[in-house]
C-alpha cells in the first residue's frame, strides 16, 4: 500500500537485530559509558579533571566518537545484511510491497535501534557523575546531536548493507579510516565526517561549550547532512529495486 513504512517488515527487522546474543552485546555497549563514569567517580584524586570536563570528553571521544558509529554500523548493515547472509531476503521481495517501503521500514528500525542504545549510554554516566555543573539541558543537547548521528550514519550504512556482503567490514573501515585517521590528519576531511556534524550540532544547541569545539559550521552540517540523508536513502532504494537475486537469495 502507500504507507511509507510496513509494520511487519519493522517487526521482523527488530526480531533479527535483537536476537538474544546480540541483545546482550548491545546492552553491554549501552552500559559501558556508565562503567567508565563509575570508575572516574570511585577514583580518589581524579587527576585534577573536573566532572563536567570529564563527562564532556567522554561524550565527545567515547560516546559520540566510538559507541555511536559502532552501534550504527552494527544495526545499519545488519538490517539487510542478516537477510543476505541467511538467504532470507526473498521472503520480503516476493510480497506486494514496494521496495522503497522495505528500505524505509528497515532504515527506521536501524535509526531507532541505534538511538535506543544511545539513551542509556548518554543518560547513565550523567546520573552516576552527579548532576554537578553539567545541566540536564546540556545532556539533552548531546542526545540531540547523537540523534542526528543516528539518522546520518544509518543513511550511510543501510545502502552499504544492501550493496555488500562485507558491509560490516567496510563500515568499520569507514569509521576508522575516514572518521578517525583522515579527519585527524587532513583538515578538509572533517567536513566529510558525521562525527564532526554531531559535535557541531551539540555545540550549536548548547550555545558554546569549551570542551566540545566543533570544526565544521552548521551550514556545512545542513548541506552535507541533507546530501547524506537523501543520497543514502535514494541509493538504498535504487539498489534494492535493481536487486536481482538468483545466487544471493
Amino acid at each position, binding site marked *: 500500500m502507500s504507507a511509507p513504512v510496513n509494520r*511487519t*517488515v519493522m517487526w521482523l527487522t527488530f526480531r533479527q537485530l535483537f536476537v538474544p546474543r546480540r541483545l546482550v552485546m548491545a546492552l553491554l555497549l549501552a552500559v559501558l559509558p556508565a562503567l567508565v563514569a563509575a570508575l572516574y567517580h570511585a577514583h580518589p584524586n581524579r587527576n585534577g579533571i573536573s566532572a563536567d570536563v570529564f563527562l564532556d570528553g567522554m561524550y565527545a571521544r567515547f560516546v559520540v566518537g566510538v559507541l555511536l558509529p559502532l552501534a550504527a554500523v552494527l544495526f545499519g548493515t545488519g538490517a539487510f545484511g542478516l537477510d543476505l547472509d541467511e538467504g532470507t531476503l*526473498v*521472503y520480503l521481495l*516476493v*510480497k*506486494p*510491497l514496494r521496495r522503497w517501503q522495505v528500505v524505509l521500514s528497515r532504515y527506521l528500525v536501524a535509526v531507532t535501534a541505534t538511538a535506543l542504545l544511545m539513551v542509556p549510554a548518554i543518560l547513565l554516566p550523567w546520573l552516576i557523575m552527579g548532576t554537578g555543573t553539567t545541566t540536564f539541558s546540556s545532556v539533552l543537547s548531546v542526545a540531540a546531536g547523537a540523534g542526528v548521528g543516528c539518522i546520518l550514519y544509518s543513511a550511510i550504512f543501510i545502502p552499504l548493507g544492501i550493496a555488500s556482503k562485507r558491509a560490516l567490514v567496510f563500515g568499520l573501515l569507514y569509521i576508522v579510516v575516514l572518521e578517525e585517521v583522515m579527519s585527524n590528519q587532513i583538515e578538509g576531511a572533517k567536513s566529510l565526517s558525521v562525527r564532526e556534524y554531531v559535535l557541531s550540532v551539540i555545540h550549536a544547541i548548547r550555545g558554546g561549550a569549551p570542551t566540545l569545539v566543533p570544526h565544521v559550521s552548521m551550514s556545512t552540517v545542513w548541506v552535507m547532512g541533507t546530501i547524506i540523508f537523501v543520497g543514502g536513502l535514494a541509493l538504498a532504494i535504487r539498489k534494492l529495486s535493481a536487486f*536481482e537475486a*538468483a545466487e544471493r537469495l
Partner: protein
Amino acid sequence: MSAPATPVAAHPATTPALDSKAGDRIGDAGSGGPRVTLASASRWYGNVVAVNDISCSITPGITALLGPNGAGKSTLLHMMAGLLSPSAGSVEIDGIAAFGHPGIYRTVGLVPEREAVHAMLTGREFVRMNARLQELSNADEATDKAIAAVGLDEAQHRRVGTYSKGMRQRIKVAAALVHEPRVLLLDEPFNGMDPGQRMQMAALLRRLAADGRVVLISSHILEELGDLAANVLVMVDGRLAASGDFREIRRLMTDRPHSFTVRSSDDRRLGATLLAEPTVYSIELADGELRVRTMDRGAFTRSLPRLARDANIRLHELRPTDESLESVFSYLVAR
C-alpha cells in the same frame, strides 16, 4: 513504479510467434485461469547464457520443470517469480510483466530452493509474517489454514531453527500458500523429504492444482515427480528441450537405448549368444568387459540370466552404464 505493460502492445513481434508454437502450450487449454506466459525469454550473466529463448504458456494444473543441475531451472523460476528481469523477451503473469510489479505477488507464491528461513521465529510466526506481508485481513485464520495444510500444527510453536529439513520445506510451502496464490512456483520442493512427507506434499499439490491453480514444480529427479505432473517442461543447457505430456516424455525416456556392462566367466561366448537376441542391437568387447546396448531393458534383464544359464556361463556383474539423468536428457535433446 511504471504502469503495467499491456502484453500485446508491448511485444507485438513476439506474440504471434508464441501463438504459432501450439505445442508449447502447457496445461489445460481452458481460458480464464491464471497463466504464466514466456515469450522468447532469455537471461544471461555476462557471457553465460542461463536461459535461452524459451517460449511457453503455463496454464492451471501441475507442471514439472525437469532438467539436470545447472540447466537453468532456477533462473527460469526466478524470472517467473519476478526476481530476475529477462535479458531479452518477456515473462508475464496474467499479462503483467513479472519483474518490477510487486502487485503480481497477490497472484504468485514462491517456495525458494534454499533451505534458509528466519530461524529465530517460530513456524507460526514465520507463516503469519508472510500473511501480514501479503496484507491479508484475516492473517491468523489464513495462518491456521496454511499450517494445517502442510501438517505442521504440532510443531508450529517451535522455532524454525529447530526444524528438520523436511519440516522446513513444509513451513516454506505453508508460507507460500498462505495467501492462496493462483500461481504457485516450487523450486525443488521435495528436497530433504522422506517418502511419507513426499506423498503428503504430492497430495497437497494435487489439491491445489485441482482448485484451478498453476502449480510449477522444478526437479532434477524425474522419478521424484512420479505421476504427479501431467505436463512437463524439460530444460537442458538453458533451452527448452522437450515439453508436453508427462507420459509421452516418460515413454521417450524408457524407449531409448540402454547400455549395460556385463562381466561373466566367458564374455566372448555370452556376447555371441546375446547377439542372437532380438532385443539386443549391439555388443562390444573391450577392456575385459562386454558392453551391450538394448532397446528393451526389461526384456533384456529378464532374458540375460536364462541365456547365461542355458549356455553354462557364470555371470559376475551386470551394471547399467548410462542411467544418470544427464544422459537421459542429452538423449532427448539429440533426437
